[in-house]
């Protein structure tokens, strides 16, 4: 019965590298249905809705023509949220109420101590939430049936996160390129595709020059402010606005440099990557996306996602090809539930 088809099986060329063929129009349908069901279920459907959005985005992202696949379920996200709600959020709310009561009793020192501890707990949970969300998403990502994964622990990531933050504070921000790269090194170095492991060369010195421009602008602005205060004059106020513009420009300039540098130093089984990305392009992406969201009251969200995906795919290049024979299935343990903690911090809208 397949005889009619036999002459058609000449292979059509597959697009090389990474491609994305999702459409805002289609994603909008998914999004609209999500909103509808989320409303009638009093918000409960959002976990399932999120899953459908991811399924759509993943299945339209391809490498060598083969689509990525999202295998997470709404139930996993929901259970993850329920667990975190009872294990973390509710106790924290309890402590918060306790602090309020103490405040009414006027026990200020205890309030400061407990309040401080509360902030510290929040602060430690935040990076753990990020790490766990990455771990869940990667463990639910397949390519050619091979599972991705993230090893390492949220605790180590949080320790590094906080340690590097302290280092930045001590160095007045000058350690930023170093800490940024080192944090990425831990994250990227723990990403696996099957038996293949990603790694990041932790060089950071090339980022110093773009960072110093950004940093210099901020310092200049600060000096300007102090000088104006000391001299009691407003005659240099006209410099404030251009300096702020410069800070914004150099922020995007530096951010683009970080992306270029970090992606350019990722290695995977002999494969290298690069992003051809300029600061103004990054600014343009964020600016237009922001306008789209603001002027459509969020309705344009699906198109914003598609724009971001297209942008990334457009800029990303893959150099070389791994020996696919050598990449075998991932045997790491998978997390059972998803992202509750990240949900609590409202990290990542898709």
């Amino acid at each position: 019965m397949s005889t009619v088809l036999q002459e058609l099986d000449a292979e059509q060329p597959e697009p090389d590298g990474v491609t994305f063929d999702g459409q805002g129009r289609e994603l909008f349908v998914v999004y609209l249905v999500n909103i509808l069901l989320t409303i009638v279920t009093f918000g409960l459907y959002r976990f399932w809705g999120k899953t459908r959005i991811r399924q759509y985005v993943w299945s339209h992202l391809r490498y060598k023509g083969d689509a990525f696949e999202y295998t997470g379920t709404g139930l996993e996200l929901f259970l993850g949220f329920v667990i975190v709600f009872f294990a973390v959020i509710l106790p924290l709310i309890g402590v918060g109420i306790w602090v309020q009561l103490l405040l009414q009793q006027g026990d200020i020192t205890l309030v400061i101590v407990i309040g401080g501890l509360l902030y510290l707990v929040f602060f430690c949970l935040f990076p753990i939430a990020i790490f766990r969300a990455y771990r869940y998403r990667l463990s639910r990502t397949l390519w050619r049936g091979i599972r991705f994964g993230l090893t390492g622990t949220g605790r180590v990531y949080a320790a590094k996160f906080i340690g590097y933050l302290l280092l930045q504070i001590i160095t007045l921000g000058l350690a930023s390129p170093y800490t940024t790269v080192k944090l990425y090194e831990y994250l990227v170095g723990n990403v696996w595709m099957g038996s293949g492991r990603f790694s990041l060369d932790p060089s950071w010195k090339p980022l110093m020059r773009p960072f110093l421009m950004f940093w210099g602008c901020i310092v200049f602005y600060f000096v300007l402010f102090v000088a104006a205060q000391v001299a009691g004059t407003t005659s240099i106020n006209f410099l404030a606005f251009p300096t702020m513009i410069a800070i914004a420009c150099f922020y995007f300039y530096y951010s683009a440099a970080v992306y270029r540098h970090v992606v350019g130093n990722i290695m995977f089984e002999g494969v290298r990557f690069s992003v051809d990305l300029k600061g103004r392009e990054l600014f343009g992406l964020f600016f237009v996306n922001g306008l789209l969201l603001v002027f459509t009251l969020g309705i344009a969200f699906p198109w914003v996602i598609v724009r971001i995906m297209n942008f990334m795919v457009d800029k990303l290049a893959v150099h070389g090809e791994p020996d696919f024979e050598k990449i075998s299935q991932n045997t790491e343990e998978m997390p059972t539930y998803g992202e509750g903690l990240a949900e609590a911090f409202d990290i990542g809208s898709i």
Partner: protein
Amino acid sequence: MNELGIQCGYFDGQSAAEQSISVEFMMDGLVFQVPGGGLVSWSYDQLRLISLQRNNGHMTLGWAEDDAVRMRIKNREAGEQLFRLAPHLKADRPEKGVMKPVMVSGAIVAILAMIYFSYPVFRQAIIMSLPDSWAQEIGNTLAQVSIGKAASCTDPQGLIALQTLTDRLTKGVAMPYELDIRVIDAPIVNAFAAPGGQVVLFRGLLDEAQSIDEVAGVLGHELGHVKHRHPLKRVIDIYGFELLLTSLGGNFGGYSSMLLMMSYSRDDEREADETSLSLLKDAHISGDGYADFFERLEEKQSFLPDVMNFLSTHPLPEEREQTIRERDDVGPTTPALNKSEWHALRNICGSAGRKLDDWDLQDEEIINI
């Protein structure tokens, strides 16, 4: 067989390498030789569409029997052929199958609307089927919470006067419960009815009242709540709402205390006012006292911002006063109690002539009548 099949890609779930297979499209499934293995058949209903490539119609398929293996059909015509053989694959994408969720939403909305509109009927059924002893039990508990440690007033002359007033108001009127009317020794200008025929007047109300007819109006109002079983209605509303919140999976325990303060609906209050007027009329008591009471309530409340009045579940005092003043002519009236009885009632707590400095406008006081 190989010459007849379609060239497809195969991923065995063990490695990321693509293997080449030749697939035959049979009536009931896709048949092919697994590289280094035997002949297998993926029946159409076990297939899952993982991805469909827009520009060339290539597709990735999964198989229910082994979750790691994938097949890649790199041929638009073969893909279209597959869609004809396994039409369910077409809906196997997040952006497809819109009708189903829309219908589910519609159904959920319809069910919620049905629950909402049929709820009063259910509630009435529950009220009717609850034994009176249960209602009294609930009422005792709630009244105890509201009264706290304050004592019931027991002056014998006062109790007789209270009984006389009650008898006069309820003469020939069927009440669903046996009445239990008490005065509580607390300087609050308030009164309330609890489930199961309990009515509580606070001493402050008697102290503040300028005539016995005012007290009669307020008591008639509370008796109106009792007659229409409003307190039980309210309790069922609160428990029903908590049940709903709990069943939605949240822990909303903290809301219950807030809900306990939730009052009757404005309709209930109007109904109680109407009942009070009809009780007064049948007992040949003037409604002017009750109207006077609201007139003074109006003055006391005038400093409350309008927003508060709007949020309040009670009708505005001026509106209530007006309704009472516009009532039908009731013919000749006599005071609800004679002078000595009224005096005895005021002294029911053994504290003659005590006067409140001013009304305490705190929390739910006053407005709850």
